[in-house]
Each structure stands twice: as C-alpha cells, then as structure tokens.
C-alpha cells in the first residue's frame, strides 16, 4: 500500500521522503511539512511518518486506537485545483471501490495550537471511519501561507483494515507469510501504554521539557532554525507524555501549549528570516 502511494504521488511530481527520526504526534510535525510549507516556493512531497500519541494508548485493547501508528503524508504547495480528485484517485489506486464504499468529506477545521497553525478542510470518511485528514493550511507558525499548501494525512492502519476487511488492527496481515500487525506491535502497545500512563517518571519529564525549551532558545540565539525546531518537537512530545501521566492541570495546560507554540513559532520565524521571506 505504501509502495502504491509512493508510485502514485511520485508520478504526480512529489519527492518521496523518509520518516523524520524523532518522536512526533503527527506527520505535520515533519520539517518537510512545517518548515517547507512556509514561503513562496513550490513544494510537493510524500512520506510515511510514525506518530506517537501517548494519550491514545489503550493497552492493545481497542480495535483501532493506538499510541504508535503510521501516517502517510502528502504536502502540495500551492494546493492544486484538482486536489480532491487527485486524492480520490489515490484511494482508487490502493483498492478502495467507490461504488461500494461511502466516501464523505466531513467538516473538520484543523488546528495545531502547539504549532501556531490552522487550516480548513475535512476528515474524509470511508463508511463512517475517518481515513484521511484533508487540510488547506492557512497559517503555520503564526505566518499566513503565501501560497496555501494542501495536506493529506492518511491513517495507514485504518485504510489497511478496509482493504483487508479486518475488524481489529492487530489482525492485519503484515505479509503473506502469516505475520500480523499484532505479532509486531501488540506487546509494544501494552508496554508503552503502561509506561505512558503509569510508569514514566514525571520529574524527569518536567526536567526534559525545560531542557528542550532551553536548547531551542539556545539554537535560536545562534540563528539555527532546524535544530531549534527539533527541540520544539521534543518539548511537544514531552508535554504529551506529561498529559498522559495526568500531572498537568487544566490551568497549566494552556501555559504549556503556549510555551511550545512560542518555541515552534520562533523556529518558523528563524526559517523565514534565513530564507529572506517577509511575513
């Protein structure tokens, strides 16, 4: 399926990239999306990104919620006029029969408070299941998009469940030799859920958050946008872990989100400046 998507989007002018090697909550955090979405240059890319969402962990007991899963990201700037048709073409390419499945574009305004980003679009439903997030970015890092980029984020596990017609993500066939998704990831989900929710040392996490924030500022002081951005991602993931541990109160939550947003915005601003782009 990934290879089919790579072929499909490569044929349509996308560069095919590899995952970013850091923990992140969504493919949107990949520099190929955030930083490259800024500025006037044409940019078309597609890649797989493993995502970590500690609070979505279900100890391997939920048929489709996971704290670690894979997204397929496509970013197209400027957004092409036939983006919906291109997207539907990609679904057909991976085997979704649209005469038997109900595909719907359901309003979902995307916002990432930690990236200072928002866009309008939909969650795309296939028979009631959200399989893709479809967004026209309007702002990133607090900057207006000039021009607007279109972002497609496919939930690979969910699409695979459709195509293989299985009820439970852990029953997905990983190859033709009987290896299932569960064989590979079930124990990982159990252990990571336990660690995320119950074990992770909160004092170290708070410390990690502070250090990442400090390092981000250190990098910004040196005018280095990319290392600063990486530290912002690190702070964001650490914040997510703290959330899963339930140690951030409602009042503090906003303050932490604001802190991460400031870091991410700072990195985006440094990137704009480095490229000589005006806000």
């Amino acid at each position, binding site marked *: 399926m990934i290879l089919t998507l790579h072929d499909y989007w490569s044929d349509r002018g996308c560069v095919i990239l590899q995952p970013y090697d850091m923990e992140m909550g969504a493919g949107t955090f990949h520099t190929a999306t955030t930083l490259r979405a800024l500025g006037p240059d044409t940019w078309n890319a597609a890649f797989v990104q493993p995502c970590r969402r500690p609070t979505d962990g*279900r100890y391997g007991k939920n048929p489709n919620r996971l704290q670690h899963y894979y997204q397929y990201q496509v970013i197209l700037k400027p957004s092409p006029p036939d983006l919906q048709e291109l997207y539907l073409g990609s679904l057909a390419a991976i085997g979704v029969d649209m005469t038997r499945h109900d595909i719907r574009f359901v309003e979902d305004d995307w916002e990432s408070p930690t990236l200072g980003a928002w866009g309008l679009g939909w969650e795309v439903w296939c028979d*009631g299941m959200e399989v893709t997030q479809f967004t026209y970015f309007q702002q990133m890092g607090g900057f207006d998009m000039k021009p607007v980029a279109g972002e497609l984020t496919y939930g690979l596990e969910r699409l695979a469940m459709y195509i293989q017609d299985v009820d439970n993500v852990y029953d997905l066939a990983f190859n033709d030799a009987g290896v299932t998704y569960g064989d590979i990831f079930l124990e990982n989900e159990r252990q990571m859920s336990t660690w995320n929710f119950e074990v992770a040392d909160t004092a170290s996490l708070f410390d990690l958050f502070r250090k990442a924030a400090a390092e981000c500022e250190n990098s910004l002081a040196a005018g280095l946008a990319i290392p600063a951005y990486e530290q912002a991602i690190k702070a964001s993931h650490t914040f997510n872990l703290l959330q899963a541990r339930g140690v951030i109160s409602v009042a503090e939550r906003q303050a932490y989100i604001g802190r991460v947003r400031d870091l991410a915005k700072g990195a985006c601003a440094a990137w704009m400046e480095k490229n000589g782009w005006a806000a």
Partner: protein
Amino acid sequence: MMTDFLLELRSEEIPARMQDKARDDLARLFAAELGKAGLAAGSLVTYATPRRLVLIARDLPAETQAVSEELKGPKASAPPQALEGFLRKTGLTREALTERDGVLYAITERPGRATTDVLAEAIPAIIRGFPWPKSMRWGAASASTESLRWVRPLHGIVALFGEDLVEVEIAGIRSGVATFGHRFHHPGQITIGSAADYVEKLRACHVIVDQDERRALIRERATALAAEAGLVLVEDEGLVAENAGLTEWPVPLLGRFDPDFLSVPPEVIQLTARVNQKYFVCRDAEGALANAFVCTANIEATDGGAQIVEGNRKVLAARLSDARFFYETDLKTPLETQATKLANIVFHEKLGTVADKVDRVATLARWLVEEGIILLGTGRGTGEAGGGGVPQAASPAEAPLHHRPAAGGPPPRAGEEHVVLADMAERAARLAKADLVTGMVGEFPELQGLIGGYYAAAQGEPDAVAEAVRDHYKPVGQGDAVPAALVTVAVALADKLDSITQFFGADLRPSGSKDPFALRRSALGVIALILDNGLRFPLGTAVDQGVLDFFADRLKVQQREAGVRHDLIDAVFALGGEDDLVRLLARVHALQAFVATEDGTNLLAGYKRAANILKKEGVPDREAAVASYAPEPAEAALIAALDAAEPKAAAAIEAEDFEGAMAALASLRAPIDAFFDDVTVNDADPAKRAARLQLLDRVRAAVHTVADFSRIEG
C-alpha cells in the same frame, strides 16, 4: 416578459452546519444587490447541498425601469454667478436646462439597464461580500493574501438569465452553463438549459438539490427501516439536517452492533453514535435502547450497502469499545478519590479550585437542610426530575430519603431522619463534581453529572445521593425538568447559589449581553427550585442585597414569560423587605386575580384618585387633622369601613392569606366611591380639608399593606 434567473455556486464540500445560513445570506445579498438597481424578483428560492449553493429568482424584468431625475436650479432671473455655479455642478449648458414657472431645472434621463448587466455586477459583489463564518484561500493565487476567500475552494459558477449566460469572471472562474452531478454516481459534466430544468437535470444525475426533500427522505426512510426491524427510531431533527447537509443522494441504512456494548450507559451510546458518527439510534418495543443504528450513506452502493453497513458497524464498535474502556477504567477509582484531583482544577482564577467550590457547596447544602429550608415533608417527593436511566443503588430496597434502622431497633424520629438528610446532602455535594476528572467526561463533557450518577450508584451510594450527583446541574435553562428530590434540591440549590454569590463577590457580575458564567441561568434555576418545591427560603439569610436585586430582576423575566404582569410584581417588590419568593409570588398571584375583578378595578380607580389628590395637596400633619366636626355620612361610613378592614387585612397578611387580604380591601371599594361622590375634600374649612386628606392617606396606607398600587398600570 418576465424571466427566471439561476445561480449555482459550486465548491468543495460546504460544512453541513453552515448551509442553512448560507442560503439565507445568498437570498438577502441578492435581493440587496438587485434592489440597488431598482429590481425585485417575484420570488426567491435557495437550495444548498454539500457541493453547491443555489438561487433561483423568478419573474425578473428584462431591464430596469428608465428613471428621470430632476434637479432644481436657480430662478431664471437669478444673477449670472448662480447660473454658472449650477451649470458647473451639473455639467450642462444653459440650453439643456428646462424652465418651469420661472425656475431652471436640470433633467437627466437614465435609460433602463439590461437585467443581465445588473446581474453581471451583482454576482461578483455577492461572492466577494459573502459572510461565511470561516473562509479560506487556496491555490496558486493565494500567494497574495488578498486572493478570493470562500468557505472551501470555489470551482464553478452557473448563471443563466432565462437561457442566456450571464457572463462573469471572478478570480479566474468564468461563469458557464455546465455543472457536475453526484461525485461518484455521475462524475461527468452536465449542461443546464435554464432555471426551469436545473432541479430535474441534477436529479437525473443523482443530486437532490432541495435540502427539504433530502431531509424528508432521510426522516421517512430511517423511520421505516427501524420499523421494519421491529424497532422505533429515536427522532433527532438535528441529525436529519446534518445528514442532509452531508449528502447529495442520501441513502439511510440500518445496521446492528454487538449487544454486549449495551452494558455501557445508554446515554453514552446515543451520544457517541450521534456526535462522533452522526447515526440515529433505535429503541425496542419496551423503550430500551436497541443494538441498532441508522447511518446515512451518500451513494446507492452496487452491493445494496452491505459493505457500507459493515464498515460503519466496525467504526461504531471501536467507538463503543473506547467508551467501555473509559467506563470500566473510571469504575476502578472511587469518586471520593477522583474528587481529590479537583484541587488541581481551577474553578476561576479569582475563586480558587473546583475542590474549594465543592467544600463551599457541601457546607451550604448541609446548612440548607439544617436550617429547615429543605425539610422532610416539603417538596414534591423524589424521582420526578429524572432524565431516565436512574441507576439502581446497591440495595434497591433502600428508600431514597429514609434512614433504615437496624432490624429490631427503634423507629427513626423525625430529627434523626433530618440528620440523615443533612449527611446525604453533604455527601452528594462532595461527590457531585468528581466526574469532571473521569475519562468519560473528558471524552464527553456533556455527560457531566449524568455519568457521575452512574458511578455513584455503582459504588453503592444511596439512590438519593446518586440521583443528586446526576441531577444537581438541573434545571439547565427554561423548560428543563426541575429537581424535586430533597437531596438533589439541596445540592442543586447550593451549587447555583455558590456560583452566584462567589462571582458577585469577585465583582464578576453579568452586564448587558455578557454573562460568561451563565449566572442569569443559575439565578433562574434557583428561582425554579424554590418555587416549584415551595421552599420557604428567606434569601436574605444567604445572600446580600446586590444578589437579591439580581434575583428580583430574574424573577420578573421568568414570571413575565409565565404570564404574570410585571407591574404587579413591581407593585409587590416596591413594598420592600420581601425575600421569600414563595410568599412574594402568592401575593402577586392574589393581586393579579383581584385587579381582574370589578371590585379590584374600581378600588384601583379610587386609590389612584386618592393618591393623585394627596400628591397635589400633600399629606397634612396628624395634629392638624383631628376631626373637630361632625363627619358627613359618607365620610363616617368610610371611617367605619377602614376600622373594620384594616385589622382584617393585617390578620390575613400575617396568615399569608392574600386572597383574604384582598377581600378585606374590596370592602372599601363602595365606601370610597360614595365618599368621592358625596364629600368635598377641598373644603373651605381647613380642619375639614386636613381631616379628609388624612382619611385619604389612611386609605392609601391600607391598600399599601397588600401592594403599592401606584405601580399598577391601567
């Protein structure tokens, strides 16, 4: 010859919730643009689907009316400077002016304009000025932030006046005669001839343009599917409209989910089905939630929808599995343990944490019982305000409000029961907010209270406590059920009173249209709890004057809606010192009944006459008014009537028998009328005048024991 106009604005999927308002806005903006040119359509129809916004204007003329504008100038005999100024202003020559009755006029003939020209200007103006709640930029043009904004990318404009294309171009989109049918059933282009064939041509391409038709189809088909399965659809107009806004060719389908999920509270199942998946749910013949759902697809699938139903079933199963995960996880932690986490949640930056609030509410709820404001034997009993699905307590035999003594022990005395009631009120208050930190409320905030009620019952709290946890937010707005169970009333009242007094204390009171903490709604809740349960609660013992005045205002609003005359409420309020709402309203109701009678109307007239005289003449000193003369018969009769009525009215008011008080006053009506007929107040003898004014003052005072009649209108 009148002609119809068709406008179709085709875009990517418009959010369902925005479609109704978009239709209204389109009609309004269109009428306004045409109005500027002096045009009006015979009728306007608008339609919305996910992918198009449509307007059909019927009976437009082919061109606008020719207009003759006349501008008055100087007199023909005026000095040349005046004429020159006028010619400069109008840009005309002297020969072009018309002279009438010695005055010069500039007359400009404006010929009619072709309606197509007006439309060609109107369409871009409408599109650029469209008030979408949220709009966006897209595509290469968005390199400039000034590029066209629309709710989602705009792709096509069909604009036909009769059969003629109205040529428009906006942001690179040229109007045409072609549009597209259903995204999957009919992906190709179709050509529209005119407004007359638009709806049917699209229907042939699997698009039902009329949202009302789609709604009716969903409503009827979903109901029928449930009936065919031996079930009853739980009606939900919001879902009907939303699904109609998500489909161009709606196809309702019924599916089943694993009955094991019915162990999750039915409200949770219904909520997740509705909010997350936009499904209807069904009940069985006994009224219990059934393991069935109705989803609305946008296609007629080649397999009859089997795969669609199966896919939707899986999604719902995952959602319900998640809900069950939260439910079972939450049940592992007792509510009192959850409640300790409330110390981490800020209620308001000036008012501490939710835990602080819980402490105050618990104290207040106990106080309400201990003060005898909430008393066994008052209220309307238990269990009337329920939202259904009351969880059973561990011991179903446990009566909600009665302490059950150990077998063989002495029967409880009223005092003991009262202590138990106070304990329960405090206990319920301490648990009431604990569900705010549960996973379930984190996922579904609208379940606050309700889910706490389930958890309280599951951990073996008495029914009365679980019910109070569940219902303590009630009543939420007008029309919501008002709790009647005593423990619930105590907690509900304490919770709302605490919010109001705390926010007022921090000077965060509502003003104008701003009421961010919904204190007006809380005050209405307090009023409803007191009145519906007949609570004798002197509010002044719990709140200060500022809050009392706030309640008075809210009471007027609430009673006005209930048909009580606001001037009568004012008349009673004006007496001052009344903080018992039950007594206050009893007085108002008696007054309203009384002023509707002939006696009441005439007494009011007599009162007003007396009050007017007193206002004009002033009230003399009592000393000056000692009657040193033989009163006339009507005067003596009025004195006698007052001597009789005053103690009767006072006694009746003391006994809160306001009808009796009104009846006592009614006895004054005839003597007052006779007095005004027979006696001159403004007598030449100052002693008589003073005594009679004094008498009128006494009449006024007697009437004021019931209400300030000067506030009564009419």
